[in-house]
């Protein structure tokens, strides 16, 4: 099964012909435009190993997240980074390659925090294995995590081992009417307390807080925090995770309104960049619908200790991701050159020039 992929990449390497890696196609909107022949991974499917007592699952890259999550749920376990599916047939490989995590991320960790090992095929067609299936492993450089968020530019991910966690016994969602500045302050204050937080969101004057954990812990935290209980809250968090609310929808091209993700220091005061904002991750992510020029938003996010991404919209000349400093850009080019010397894997998807 793997040999067809190694052969395909070897041939592409020999010819210098670019390949576009595609799993479920749920995140084709994400990243810079790339071009080339599609290399589909869905045939690389199936859970290879799952040991609930070891908290480790290993699956091939083309396995759908839905299949993995269903299997975990049978054992009351979960992917704690709550990966978005974006309404499509999101796969494990795409989840790791995009490095995107969901609402639970600030409190449980990101996909990169749960990756224990990967198998990849690099840009020369060489199969490689890094990391493993154990939770602690410091042998060699952490190439597994380097693959997370690299958008397939360093290698085709063929298999991933992940740490999984037990599902919380109880979950409650509370809502508070608060203005933006007060909500940001409250999110940060709560995170400094021993509270079982698992997600936070602020939009249009409403702070929404999810608590997860032991029943007793959730009840105690609820009593302490007050607020209004949001009944049947699961769909709320699911829609936020998958951007399935009108706020996140693509605007008509004529309006020039695009969806930006500004990752900033979580205590950053309200950004004076327009009213259409949705705050997540305890204040660390500010979703913004804006027609401001890319350069202005990159500068704004960098000024707040973070970075901006044009999440959905038409890529500007600089690319959709925050430009890197010259020193880091050189390191990126060097790494790309080592893993994919002819630049055939997802060329241009991460940064336009490689």
């Amino acid at each position, binding site marked *: 099964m793997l040999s067809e992929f190694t052969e395909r990449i070897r041939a592409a390497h020999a010819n210098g012909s670019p390949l576009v890696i595609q799993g479920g196609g749920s995140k084709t909107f994400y990243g810079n435009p790339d071009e080339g022949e599609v290399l589909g991974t869905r045939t690389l499917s199936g859970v290879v190993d799952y040991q609930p007592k070891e908290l480790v699952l290993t699956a091939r890259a083309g396995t759908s997240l839905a299949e993995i999550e269903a299997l975990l749920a049978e054992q009351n376990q979960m992917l704690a980074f709550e990966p978005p599916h974006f309404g499509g047939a999101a796969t494990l490989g795409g989840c790791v390659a995009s490095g995107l995590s969901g609402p639970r991320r600030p409190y449980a960790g990101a996909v990169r925090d749960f990756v224990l090992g990967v198998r990849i095929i690099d840009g020369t067609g060489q199969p490689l294995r890094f990391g493993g299936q154990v939770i602690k492993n410091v042998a060699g450089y952490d190439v597994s995590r380097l693959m997370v968020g690299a958008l397939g530019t360093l290698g085709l991910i063929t298999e991933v081992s992940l740490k999984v966690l037990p599902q919380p016994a109880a979950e409650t969602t509370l809502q508070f009417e608060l203005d933006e500045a007060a909500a940001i302050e409250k999110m940060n204050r709560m995170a400094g307390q021993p509270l079982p937080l698992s997600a936070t969101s602020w939009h249009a004057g409403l702070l929404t807080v999810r608590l997860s954990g032991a029943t007793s812990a959730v009840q105690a935290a609820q009593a302490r925090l007050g607020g209004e209980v949001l009944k049947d809250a699961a769909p709320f968090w699911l829609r936020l995770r998958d951007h399935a609310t009108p706020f996140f929808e693509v605007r008509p091209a004529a309006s020039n309104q695009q969806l930006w993700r500004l990752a900033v220091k979580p205590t950053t005061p309200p950004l004076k960049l327009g009213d259409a904002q949705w705050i997540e991750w305890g204040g660390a992510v500010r979703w913004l619908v804006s027609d401001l020029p890319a350069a202005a938003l990159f500068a704004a996010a960098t000024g707040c200790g973070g970075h901006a991404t044009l999440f959905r919209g038409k890529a500007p000349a600089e690319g959709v991701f925050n430009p890197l400093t010259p020193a880091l850009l050189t390191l*990126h080019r060097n790494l790309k050159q080592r893993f994919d010397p002819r630049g055939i894997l997802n060329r241009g998807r991460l940064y336009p020039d490689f």
Partner: protein
Amino acid sequence: MLSPVFLSQLRRLLPPHSVLFEREDLMPFESDGLSAYRNVPDVVVLPENEAQVAAILQLCHAEKVAVVARGAGTGLAAGALPIDGAVLLVLSKLNQIKDIDPLARTATVQPGVRNLAISEAAAAHGLYYAPDPSSQIACSIGGNVAENSGGVHCLKYGLTVHNILKLRAFAITGELLEIGSDTLDAAGYDLLALMTGSEGMLAVITEVTVKLLPRPQRAQVVLAAFDDVAKAGAAVGNIIAAGVIPAGLEMMDRLAIQAAEAFVHAGYPLDCEALLLCEVDGVNEEVSDDIFTVREVLTASGATEIRTAESEEQRLRFWAGRKAAFPAVGRLAPDYYCMDGTIPRAQLPHVLQRISEMSAECGLAVANVFHAGDGNLHPLILFDANQPGELHKAESFGGKILELCVAVGGTITGEHGVGLEKINQMCAQFSTPELVRFHEVKAAFDPHRLLNPGKAVPELHRCAEWGAMHISGGQLPHPELPRF
């Protein structure tokens, strides 16, 4: 040897007290925490600011002189062992806590700040820095990042890589690299992960921004004794299967228990084969629930005795034995050699059985201390370095334990790093193309191989030579390589 011209150039960059070159000044730096490996450095530099670090690196880069970075020197894998003809760059004078931001829950510190000092400084805000390697009173955060250090709370709170946000580091060219960000992710490749655990091979860290967590409201520990190591191992899996993620989950075998009890009188039961310490933390109510669950699981798993610490004083006493396990075992023999393999937990009974067989074969005793929750095994091999051949025997036994860990699906090092110590076993864990890729990662940062050369990733010819000594079943590990 370094040339007098180079040394005089170096001395021009730094105040006189920051350059050591007299033999008696150099002796304290001859080894790190693995004292079996010694090499007196040619010169030691102790920069006091980033500009000096950059200048030293620029000079070394221009003159193609190697640089070994070192923090507190507590590492256990000879990662900071001086190299002949290299500069030993000691970062202990960069020891300022630059900022604590209680609302954002971060601390920005220089690399020479001690691990525990961060938690002490954050305590006033009800916060702490989670990774707690056993050397935390002495080890420094720069070294923690270089080694991706763990501790007893990794299963729940992660390793260093999970608990840092941002680094300032200098490339060998003297160029500043700002890696990571003040938020939860950064643009581009995850260079923060690549730097973490890179053992001083990619760049020199001059500042670290770490995450701080709220102190748990309550922590409580349960001690359980077992008459069989396999039962204790199964109990660990059962606790996790019951949905509890303990803050700490430690196991000791008979020899380690006896040594610890004799040393600190923790009150451990002595008529058992294995002891488990299971600590749960969190908000008050959650801890009560979890303790109940843990006790039930331990009983069902066949524990012969279960005790719950009823006071903070008792909790600390339960831990005192485990925390003193290394020095306690150190009293049993003139020397001990600590291994650091990690295995899938289900393999524990098999691995302990094999270790015990190998121990009998080579005639060296082993005490086993185990971060059971995350599968990280620390067998302590007892030996006497003054007996001719015993150090070699201990090293060879240790090497075999690590190869066993790889064979059962684990790794040669869970938290101590490869350094120089485990460099041969890297050949057992990784294939040639993978080792090549590691060398290329280094080359992307340091093409002239000036930062800590020869550590962490073996040269391919080294693997060929080592492989030649380990021919099993008539098959060479790397038949494609030339043999010398």
